[in-house]
């Protein structure tokens, strides 16, 4: 695998959508390529940042209202 192949598969790797063979190939490349490893960590960080930033819980009063409405 070269850096271009790695870059093309990075989204699916971060999203855990590659098959086991592809994962192995990509991991082997990352171990030997610090730049791709940094890129992978950046994209994984970006995904976590979006998740944590958009995280919020349902307001408790609304949850209770809905529970009563549906019971």
């Amino acid at each position, binding site marked *: 695998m070269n850096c271009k192949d790695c870059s093309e598969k990075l989204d699916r790797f971060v999203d855990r959508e590659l098959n086991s063979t592809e994962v192995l190939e990509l991991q082997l490349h990352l171990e030997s390529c610090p730049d791709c490893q*940094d890129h992978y960590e950046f994209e994984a960080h970006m995904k976590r940042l*979006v998740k944590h*930033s*958009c995280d919020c819980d*349902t307001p408790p009063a609304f*949850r209770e209202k809905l529970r009563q409405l*549906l019971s």
Partner: protein
Amino acid sequence: MAESPARTAFAEEALTHLDTLYRGALRLTRDPDQAQDLVQEAYLRALRYQHSYQQGTNMKAWLFAIMRNLFWDRFKGSRKEDVSLDDVGEFVLYEKLRDEGARPEADVLDKLAASEVVKAVETLPPLHREVVLLVDVEGFSYKDAATALGVPIGTVMSRLHRARQQLQKSLYDYAVESGIVRGNGRPQVQQ
């Protein structure tokens, strides 16, 4: 009249997915009151059409599908109103920052405020925003996201790719405007 045990059990299970539906509704409508109305309507509709849910399939995806369909019906009128993304080309934030001499994680990601990330997500067109919500925020697989959105997996992948590029472009623009990086990507010198 007391509700049937089956209906009660269904409602209980459906309510375990409330946070996912509320988060999705809030980011789609960008308004807490409209989000609550949308979620309530989605749950009432889910109970009404309980018989159409196939046991053993992904209830969270099924509920999200009901909610987002209501969103498109109620808030957008027509799916054609969704605007497409501007073509930002192949914008890879990591490469841009690295090529311009910044440390992409330490200099930029660590300094972005959560509110700016939310703003960038909420300014994506809804068709692209909902893919980011499902895959990045809720952790759906591409297959489950495709089920919830009623599109092929390839469409999920292409929308996600474009949405992430737009998101990274928006965050880069914000980083430049707010002085986190200079226009050439270099971090500001700490005083």
